[in-house]
C-alpha cells in the first residue's frame, strides 16, 4: 500500500510529524511507502524544507519526496525547479489554502510552466475561494501537458453541492487525478472511479491533518472490486510517479 498524500516536518500549525513517527504509523497501518512533502514550516522557508525532504528521502527509501512552494513568491518557479532538478524530488505540492492564493492565479501558471511537465503537481483542493473544483479545472485546462493530482476528490463540502463540479473535472480533464482523503461519502468515491476511470484515483490520507487508519478503512469499505482498490492503493501512484515495485 502506498499513501500518496502525507505531510511531514516542523509545522507552523503545531501538527509536526517526524519521519520516524510517520514510519511507525505506516508500519502499524500496513503502508509500505508514502509520498511526503513539507508541512508549512514555522520559518516559512520552503526551499530549506524541500532540502530536508530530499535528505529524508535519501535516508528512508520508502519515503518519496515532493517539494512545496508558495506560488505568491517571486522565486517560487525557481524553487520548484530546484526542488526537482537539484534535490531530486518527484513532484511539487501547492497548498493555496495555507499559502492564501487562488489556484487560478497567474503566479501558479509561472510555477507550472517552469516545471514543463517534468513532474506531477499535487494541489490541495476543495478549499473555499481558492481551490474549488472548477478552479482546479481552469488551471488544468491551461496546462494540458502537466499531470495534476487534486486532494479530497477535488471538493470538501458535506452538503454534497460540490460533487457535480468535481465530477465535471473527472470527466473533462484527463490530466487531473484525484486522491480521496477526507471523502466521507462512499458513493462519491465510487462515482469518481466511475467517471474519471479507475486509473486516475489514488489513495492519499492527508496525514497528519486526517487520520491514516480511518482513511484506509473508508477506501476498503467501498463496494469497488478488489482490483480497483489495488489500483487506488498502489498501482496508479506508481504509474503517475514512474516508480517501480510496490
Amino acid at each position: 500500500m502506498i499513501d500518496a498524500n502525507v505531510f511531514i516536518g516542523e509545522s507552523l500549525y503545531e501538527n509536526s510529524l517526524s519521519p520516524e513517527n510517520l514510519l511507525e504509523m505506516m508500519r502499524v497501518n500496513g503502508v509500505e511507502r508514502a509520498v511526503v512533502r513539507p508541512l508549512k514550516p514555522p520559518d516559512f522557508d520552503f526551499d530549506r524544507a524541500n532540502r530536508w525532504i530530499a535528505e529524508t528521502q535519501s535516508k528512508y527509501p520508502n519515503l518519496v519526496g515532493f517539494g512545496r512552494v508558495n506560488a505568491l513568491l517571486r522565486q517560487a518557479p525557481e524553487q520548484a525547479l530546484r526542488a526537482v532538478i537539484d534535490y531530486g524530488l518527484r513532484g511539487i505540492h501547492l497548498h493555496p489554502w495555507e499559502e492564501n492564493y487562488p489556484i487560478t492565479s497567474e503566479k501558479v501558471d509561472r510555477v507550472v510552466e517552469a516545471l514543463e511537465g517534468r513532474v506531477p503537481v499535487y494541489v490541495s483542493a476543495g478549499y473555499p475561494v481558492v481551490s474549488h473544483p472548477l478552479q482546479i479545472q481552469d488551471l488544468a485546462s491551461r496546462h494540458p501537458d502537466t499531470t495534476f493530482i487534486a486532494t479530497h476528490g477535488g471538493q470538501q463540502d458535506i452538503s454534497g453541492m460540490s460533487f457535480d463540479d468535481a465530477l465535471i473535472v473527472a470527466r473533462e480533464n484527463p490530466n487531473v487525478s484525484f486522491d480521496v482523503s477526507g471523502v466521507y461519502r462512499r458513493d462519491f468515491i465510487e462515482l469518481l472511479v466511475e467517471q474519471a476511470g479507475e486509473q486516475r484515483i489514488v489513495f492519499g490520507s492527508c496525514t497528519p491533518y486526517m487520520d491514516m487508519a480511518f482513511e484506509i478503512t473508508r477506501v476498503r469499505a467501498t463496494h469497488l472490486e478488489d482490483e480497483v482498490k489495488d489500483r487506488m492503493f498502489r498501482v496508479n501512484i506508481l504509474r503517475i510517479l514512474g516508480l517501480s515495485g510496490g
Partner: protein
Amino acid sequence: MIIDAHAHADENDIWGWYDPPEKLIALMDEAGIDMAVITSYSDEPGPSAGLENLKRYVAEFPERLIGFPRIDPKFGQKSIEIFEQTIKANPLMKGLKLHPISNLVKPFAPLCVELIRKAGELGVPVFTHCGDKIPALPLQIARAAALCPDTTIICHMGGYFHADDMLRCAQRQPNLVLDTSSTPYPRIVRKAIELLGANRVVFATDSPAGDPVSELEKIRMLNLPPDVEERVLWKNIAELIHLEVGRN
C-alpha cells in the same frame, strides 16, 4: 443495540437520487445497525413526494426505521401545521429535519425559530445539517439554539472546516447535541465526547451516502469505555426520541 441517528431514504426525481428503504436496510444489515432515523431528500411543502415516501417507508419497516419529516420553514404557519400534524398522527415520526442548504432559511430566522420551538413543544428533537458554508454554520445554529432553549438540536460536527467552532458552540449551548457522521476527523469525535460528555454525542452515518461500516469503525477505533460507547451508539438517541425499544 446500535441506532443510526441520521440516515436517508427517498426516491427523488428532481435530485435524481434513488435510495429506497430496502437499499438502506441492506447497508444497515451489513454494518450490524439495528435501527435508523431517516429523513427524505426533499423538503415539505415542495414538489416532491418526500414526506409521503417517508410515511410509507416507516410503515413498511416499523422495527427498523424512525422518521424525521424534513420541513421547509419558509412557508410559515403552513410548515408548522404540516409538521405538527405529521408528528401527532404518526408515532413513528419522532423529530424534525432541517436542511438550511436546501431551504435557504437561516436557522435563526424567525420562521425557522418558530418551527424549532414547535418541535420543543411537541417534545421531539430537531436534526439540522451543519458545516462548511452559509446558512448552516455552527455559529448560526448556535444562535438558533439560544433562541429555542427548550428544543434539543442535533447537528453535524461542523464538516470539514468548522469543527472547532462547533465544539465551542456546543460547550456554551447545552441544548446542542452532536452527531458523528460527516466529519472526516475521528479526533474531533473523541474531543466532542471529552468536552461535552458522553450524553451529548450520537452515532450517525448519513447513509446511504455515508458508509455505515466505516462510520461505525470511526467510533470503534476510539476505544471508548463500554458505557460511553453504548451511550453514543444508541442510548442517547433512544432517550432523545423516547424510543422504548432501545431501553430493553
